[in-house]
Every structure is written in C-alpha cells, then in structure tokens.
C-alpha cells in the first residue's frame, strides 16, 4: 500500500512566547503603516485644481441693498484634439483625466472640455459677478429646467450683452449649477445658468484654435459661509445619457464652491 | 465486494464503473439544472422586456421582426442529432458498436451544419443588436443556442472517437448516455427560446410613459 506515505518533513515547534508577542506587535505596526501610508499616498495622488478666488470690485446696488462686489472670470474650451495638446493653449497636463488619481492608467493628457479652474472661492454676503467665455458647441440638455436661469439677481443672465431668463434647450453647451452640500446647518444655495453654445458652423478665429467666444455674465448674492459643489448639468460627457467620463470628474465638469 | 470484482473497474480509481457512472450521472443532472437557470434568466429577460415595452422601444425599427422558420429549423437540427445518438445508444446496449459510431459521426455533421445555420441567422437578422429590446433579447437567445451547439459538437465528436477506440463499449457506455442527456436538455432549451422568439412579438403594453416624462 503506497497510500499513506507522509510527504511532509517532520514537524517541530519553534519560537518562544516572547518572540511571538514581539512579532505580534511588529505585525500590527506594519499593518498600520501600510494602511495609513497608502491612504496618504492615494490622497496625494489625487490632484485637485488650484483654487480660484473672486476679485474685489467695489460695491454694487442689489435688491438687498449695497453689497461688496466681486468678479470671477472663467472659460470653457471645446474638445481639445491632439494638435492642441502638442502646442495649444495652456491646457492642463496638470488636470486629472476622466480616470483620475490612483486609476490614472488611461488618464487623458488633454481634456475634452476645460474650465481654467473648478475650485472656486467666493466671499460671503456679497454680490458675485461671474463672466464665462464659452467656446464650445451645443449638446441638448436632459431636462429643460436647466435651459433656464435660476438663482441670479432678478433671475436673468446676459448673453453677449442681452439679458435673458433662459435660452433654447438645443442651444445649451454646458451649465454652471451650484447646489447643496449635505449640511443641514448652512443656508440653502442654488444657482444654475446655462452656457449658450457657439454656432455649429462657426470658424476658428485667426491665430487661435477656437471660434469667437460666447460671453455669459451673471450675478448672484452669497449668504453665510458654507461649502457647496457645482457641476455641469448638460450631458456633455460620454457613455449613458452623456454623464460618463468628464461629467464625473472634479476639475472638468464639476468642482467645489467655498463661501468664506 | 465480490460482486464488484466481476464488473469492470475504472482504470484511474479502481472502482467499479457502475459506481463511477452513477456518480457522473448525478453530476450531469446538476450541470443541466445550473444550465437551465441560465436559460430561464434569458427567458425572463425576454418576456419581462416584452411585457414592459419601456419607452416604446421594444419593437425593432419599422417592426422588422425576425423570420420564424430559422429558429425552428435549428431546433429541428438539434432534435435530429439527439435522436440519432439515442438510437446509437440503443444499439450499443444491444452490442453492436458500429451503429453508435456511425450515428455519432452523422450527428456531429448535422450539428456543425446547424451551428453554421445559427451563425447565418445571427448575421442576417433585419436588425442589429442595438435596435431596441426585442433585437437584444433575440440576439442573446440565439447566442446561447450557438454556444450550446458548439459544445455539443465537441461532445458528439468525442463520442464518435471514443466509440471508435472502443472506450465506449457495450458494457461501459455511460459517457454516451450523459452526452445524450445533455443534448436532450439543449433541445428543450433551444425550443423554449424559439417559442418565445417566434410567438411573443408585439408588446401588449402601450401605456408606458415616455422616457423622463409623466405621460404616455
């Protein structure tokens, strides 16, 4: 019977209680270091766009009386093709791709759409005027609600100088929508302004990769300090309903708003 | 034990082949059960989407439904092959091996033809897989059948080879039986698929609200 051949070496006990105890402590220490270290590395590895602070511009007469006035300039660029990446405008190698941070294997060097920053800082209890230069074409919105202007002073925004309460859903390129942060204490805050698209047949201006920009300007009033987020509500990404990729990415079509 | 000595023994484990055969039959039954759940999952998907007609997108564009006869032609192919194998098994049980070998070769030819037919049907649908829920569900019913056919081709080929080598012999032909059992199940599965795909066409539900709205 060749069945019960024991193929293992003879077993002997090794190690004392003390060594085991020390070994336990060392193992725990190693585990803590591994977890904490990797958490910290991942945290560092997830770039956030540089914060953009609103500039003071005197005071402004508003329905709520005279308030300190601040301005903020933003730009939205259309699809960047490889040529742009090579030597185009200051498009962001620093900007995370649709797969950011630890998952950067397929991160894009060039953003399809681009705001010069998405981390905004606004002063509290003041009138904020945001001016957006919009170079991008249109994608119809999923919900017409976001083709209207909400939350600005008298509910209007100016498109190339003419004040409107909204634009045609088919003309929307992106929207700038600030909304709530899950903090019951802080004041509710909702601003949504659609960005009108440049005409689909627009030619690039000379010396630039982009056609003439649509200039959207709107003013709203901030309340008490608090943390908010904003994102684009226009399905300008990819995958199902256009909300994949860049739409799900801070630094691209979403960001944070700090009212300080 | 004495009884076990006369009956042939398995070369690998030395147990009586009867014991091994009983064991394997249970295994095959369990595999069939598991496979059946998969088929049921596909049928659920088909009938569920058919009954909901979400966003009025069940029907393919221009109501171009698939022809009914290719489904049943494929089912017929599998049924004939299965019948052949059973016939061969009945033969080998009586002792002549040639019948099973011949039947298996013939059946494998039929199965290959059926497989080709399945591929042709898949590639000649009047719609693409992206044209609505009916298209998707039908494509997957056919893909499942194609997968089954490929596997059956292999199994039947094995039966013919092993019979030729005398490994499937009158007193040890359980493997052929297992293959036949599985083929019988595949017949049922393919027939069920063909049944829904050819009878449940236009969706009964026309009241679904349009996507993102509150009215039909």
């Amino acid at each position: 019977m060749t069945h019960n051949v024991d193929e293992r070496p003879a077993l002997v006990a090794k190690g004392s209680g003390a060594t085991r105890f020390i070994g336990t402590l060392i193992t725990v220490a190693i585990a803590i270091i591994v977890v904490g270290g990797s958490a910290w590395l991942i945290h560092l590895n997830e770039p956030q766009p540089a914060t953009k602070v609103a500039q003071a511009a005197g005071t402004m007469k508003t329905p709520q009386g005279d308030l300190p006035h601040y301005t903020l300039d933003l730009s939205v660029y259309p699809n960047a093709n490889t040529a742009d990446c090579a030597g185009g405008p200051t498009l962001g190698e620093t900007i995370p791709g649709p797969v950011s941070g630890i998952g950067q294997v397929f991160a894009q060097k060039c953003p399809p759409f681009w705001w010069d920053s998405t981390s905004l800082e606004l002063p509290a209890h003041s009138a904020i005027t945001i001016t957006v230069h919009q170079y991008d074409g249109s994608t119809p919105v999923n919900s017409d609600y976001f083709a209207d202007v909400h939350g600005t002073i008298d509910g209007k925004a100016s498109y190339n100088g003419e004040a409107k309460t909204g634009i045609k859903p088919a003309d929307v390129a992106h929207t700038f929508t600030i909304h709530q942060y899950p903090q019951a204490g802080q004041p509710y805050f909702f601003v949504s302004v659609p960005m009108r698209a440049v005409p689909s047949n627009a030619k690039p201006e000379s010396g630039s990769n982009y056609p003439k920009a649509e200039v959207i300007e709107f003013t709203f009033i901030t309340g008490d300090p608090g943390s908010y987020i904003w994102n684009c509500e226009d399905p300008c990404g990819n995958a199902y309903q256009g909300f994949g990729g860049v739409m799900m990415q801070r630094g691209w079509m979403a960001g944070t708003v700090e009212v300080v | 034990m004495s009884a076990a000595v006369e009956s042939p023994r398995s070369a690998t484990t030395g147990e009586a082949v009867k014991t091994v055969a009983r064991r394997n039959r249970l295994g095959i039954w369990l595999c069939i059960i598991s496979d059946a759940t998969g088929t049921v999952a596909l049928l659920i998907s088909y009938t569920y989407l058919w009954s909901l007609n979400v966003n009025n997108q069940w029907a393919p564009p221009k109501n171009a439904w698939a022809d009914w006869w290719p489904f049943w032609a494929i089912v017929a192919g599998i049924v004939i092959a299965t019948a052949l194998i059973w016939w061969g098994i009945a033969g080998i049980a009586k002792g002549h091996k040639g019948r099973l070998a011949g039947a298996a070769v013939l059946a494998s030819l039929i199965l290959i033809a059926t497989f080709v037919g399945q591929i042709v049907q898949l590639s000649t649908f009047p719609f693409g897989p992206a044209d609505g829920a009916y298209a998707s569900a039908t494509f997957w019913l056919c893909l499942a059948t194609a997968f089954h056919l490929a596997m059956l081709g292999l199994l039947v080929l094995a039966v013919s080879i092993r019979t030729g080598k005398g490994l499937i012999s009158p007193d040890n032909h359980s493997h052929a039986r297992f293959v036949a059992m599985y083929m019988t199940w595949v017949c049922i599965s393919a027939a069920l698929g063909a049944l829904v795909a050819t009878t449940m066409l236009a969706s009964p539900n026309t009241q679904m609200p349009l996507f993102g709205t509150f009215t039909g």
Partner: protein
Amino acid sequence: MSVMTTDIHEQTAVPQPKQHGKPGGFLRHTNIFTGVVTGLVLAIITFAIGSKIVPWGNQNVDFDQVGFQALIGITYIAWVIGFMAGIGAFAGPIRWVLGHDLTHADAEYMAGKGQGRFKYWKYTTDHKVVGIQYLIMTLVLFGLGGFLAMLIRTELGITWAEVFTPNFYNSIIGTHGIVMIIAMIIVVAGPLGNFIMPIMIGARDMAFPRLNALSFWLLFAAVPPLVSNLLLGGIRDGWTVYEPLGSQSPVGMIGYQICIIVFAFSTGIASVNLITTAFTMRARGMSWNRVPIFVIGIISAAIMGLVWFPMFQYSQILALSDRMLATSFFNPLMGGSVWLYENLFWLLGHPEVYVVVIPGTAALIELMTVFLRKPLFSYKMAIAGFAGITGISAIVWVHHMYMTGWAPSAGYPFMLSTELISIPFGFLVLVMLGTMWRGKPWTRLPMMCVYAVIWNKIIGVITGVYLSDVPVDQYMHGSMFVVAHFHYMLMGAGLFAAIGAISYWFPKMTGRMLNERIASIGFWVAFFAFQLTFMSMFVAGLQGMPRRVLQFDNAFNISNWLSTIGAYCIGIGMVIFLFAIITSWRNGKPAPANPWGAKTLEWQTSTPVPLENFPVLPVVTSDPYGYGVPDPYDAVEKKMSEADQPVGAGAR
C-alpha cells in the same frame, strides 16, 4: 463511531489503458507561473492586435467609446483563457475527446504524488491541496477587502475634509463589497468543504478531482480582473452595480463583470462537485441519519449556489453585452429596464446571503457538540432547518426591492415569505441553544466563537426582522442601518463562524496546533471592536444617514467617529489573528491525530492526512454524536412517574 475494515481496492488488478508519455503527460510542464505568463502574453497580444482593428477612436476625445470597451473586455477574456490553458486546465478535456484516458499513474501524479510543496503551485487534483489553496486565497482576499474597509472608514471618520475624491471613494466601497462577498462565499465551503468534507464522509477524494482543481484556478483567474478595476477608473456603483449607473463607469467595470462571470463558473463547478461527493461517496454504513451536520450544511449551501448563481452571471453577461455590443437590456432609452437588472441580481443576491451564513453555522453546530461533550440536540430539526432555508430562500428576493416601486402590491406576499424564513432559521437556533442547554463548555477558542456568533446572530436577525417589514424598510432602506445589519449577518455570523471553524480544523489541515493565546487576543479584540463599530452604525442609520456617501450632516459625526475607531480595532484584531495563523502554521506545536477527542471520521485518520485519506476505508456504525452520560433527571422522572402517580392524581 466507526470501525476500520479491510476493504481495500487492488489497483494493480485493473487493466490499464496505454500510458501516453510519462505519468501526468502535459501537466508535468505546467504550473502557476506558466499559467500567468501565458495569460499575460495572450492578453497583451490581443490588446495589441485588437487596438489595430477595433475602431475605438481617439482615446483622448472619446474615452468610453463602445469599441474601446469591447477591446478591454476581450483582453480580459484572453487573460482568463490564456491562464487556464497555461496551467493545463484544457489538457483533461482534450485527452477525453481524443480518448487518451488517465491511467492510475496519471491520476496519482495529478494528485500531487511525490512533488512535495511544489504541488500547491500546480493544477493538483488532490482535495486536500485544493483546500489549502482555497484557504490561502481566502486569506488574501480578506486582507484586500479589510484594507479597503480601513480606507472607507478613514474617509468617513475624517468628517471635516475629503480624503479621497468622490469617484475613488465610490470605487473602494464597490470593490470592498464584492471582494468581501466573494471571500465570504468561499471561506468555509472552499477550504473546509474541500479539505474536511470528503474525509468526514470517509471518501478517498472528491467525486470529480479535476473539476475540483478547475474550480479553484478559475477563481484564481477571476481575481486579477476585479482588482485591476481600481487602476482603470474603478467600479463607482457599490457592489450591487445597478444599471444604468454601471454603464457610466469607466472600463474598470468590465473587470468586475468578467470576474463575476468567471467566478460564477467556478462556484457552479465547485457546487456540483460538493453535492455529488456528499451524495454518492459516503463511507459504508453512513446512512442519511448518520451524516455529520456540517455535510448537510455544505450540501444546502452548494444547492443554493448551483441553482441561483447563473442569474447573477447572466445579469453581468447582459450588462457586459450592453457595453461591448451596445445591446439595450438595461438601457431605458432603448427599451431596457432597470428593474430587470435588479430582479436578476437579487434572484441570486438573497440566496447568496444564506450561501455565506449556512456553512459557517453548520460548522459551529458540528464543533459545539465536541466542546460541550454533548450530543447534537434534535438532529432532525437541524436538517429541517437547512432544508427549509434552502427552499424558502428562492422566494424572498423582492424584499431587497420594496422601495423600487416595482409592483408595490408585491410587498404583501414577500413580506410573508421573508418572515416565514425566520421559522426554519429558528430551528437552527433551537438546535444550538438546545445543544448548549445544561452543557459544560470546554472553553477553547472554537467554542468561544460559538458564543460570539450566537450573540451577533441574534442582533442580526432582530434587525433583519425590522427590514423585512415594508413600512419600516420605507424608513431604513438605503440607510446606514442596512449596512450595519448585513455586516452583523455576513461578518458577525459568517466571518466569526469561519474563524471558529478554521481554528477547529486547523490541526487537521496543517498538522500543527493553533497558538490559541495570540489567536484569542486577536479574536476578542476584533469581536468587541465589531460591536462598537456596527452598533454606532445602527445609530447613524436610525438618525437618517444614507449609505455610500462620503460627506454628511454634522449630526452623524459622533456615531461615525466611534464607528471608525471600532473599525481600526477590528483591523488590529484581525491582523493579530492572521499572525497567529501564519506563525502556528510555520512552527506551531505538532498536532496529535485527534486533539479534541472528536468522533467524526476526519479525526480518526492520521495527521497529516495521507494521500488517499484512509489506509483502509472506514465503515460507520453510528452517528458521530455519541457524547455524554445519561441524564440523571430522567431517572428521577421515571421514578416519579411510577411512585408518585397517586399524588399526581390526587393533586387534581
């Protein structure tokens, strides 16, 4: 109780088929390294060729385009096929088709004869080797899942800032969930079901040794795609990847789907193997009323897994085809339905919970008789309990969908079925309590696990009763309360039971005694920290905190801080336990054949277990629960029933 007879089979008597080459044939040249190399090479070639022919456009512009999805998916499939080919999984079927049947020498080589430790790296069919491989795999998966859990609690504990971006946070909750689910499914049925169960029923090996190896190596091939999702954008949708949100995720999602599809094959094969073994390979004399209860538990878990896993598998196959072929099963714009996904998912999803809990419970019932020196209380009730759970588990899945608005009136019947399943579950509780009734425990670590698990299970079941009730679920659904509840069931009742079972059979599996001093420290730290963590998570849920959020109201801060502290302590405890396992495995005290004085068959053979388990096959003459002495009170009662009968009559 069993006696050894001299029923041996004479291998040499059997006429052998022609021996093709050396014993083992092709498998002599394959091992895990050839498998990994072949898999990677094939995957890389596929990606290189595919990226030439598949039109997936300019990645910079359109990242999630269908063609690119298909390319990634095909690459993953190539990895799986290449790995299985490289490790020699296809050798068996091909030999069968060509009629080159295995000789006894082949079988013995494939069972790892004379290969020393190297057999653990090969396509080895011996059930003991597969059991050890499963054990290692389980430990690795628990390490990964626990690591992700620590990251999650870190994010939730640091309430004043975002440690991770929302996308990465969503990815780690999803990956943590599915990794832990897979680990919990295999933790008992894999190592112990493969290693212990065949010995327990007196068999020489599993029914289908090659399928046994196949099931493990399929699992091995399925894990890398899952883990790689973190590098490809992650699965940002929780472990129940509800469509269509799943279709918005980057290509990392494909890794998840491939993993589930392959893992479902692995589970189905393993279930077929376990059921067939338990039904057809029991030792002579082991009739159904003498089978150890652990075997019954494994059978019922295997049945549920076998019957229901294809539903989950197809939910992922169809979701994958939505990505790769742009079909529209789950895309409501094109006629798909989100409820279809939820139904297919939960048709497995709920039985899966019992697949996790049942084997551990059965193992505890098995071992508590040993440590209480007491027969199993009401064996028939235990069997009825397992059977009832196996049956009813098929018709309760909708209680995960009360709030989806799918057929609101379905709440009534499924509330009924969900409450009904608590009755067979109660049978098992009765068996455990009855066995414990008036028993004096031998307080070794496995027995302590029994107490811990019963405590956790009580809380899990009671909170489960809340959630099974539609009105209450209307408040609790999707809140942290649910998270705490299923952690009490899966971790508190499942994982701690697995710890008990593994530490009970550790001597038989490794040939060494577990260092119980260190292991107990780890165990108790983990247990009490577990209470802190999930009790405070219950509180957060009751306060109205939704699950899967990374920022939340200040009102929930305190409970989350406590929960995070507890989670860290769980981690520390588990690490200590792991350390005890590893050191004891390397150089623990050599174990005697039967350290616990147990009566089941696996303890009757020598340690370490020889190649074919038993030099001679045992014959069973009674069930393995013959512990204990006659109850003295029975004597008193009998005496009373004769002597004091008049008194009893006069009392009326």
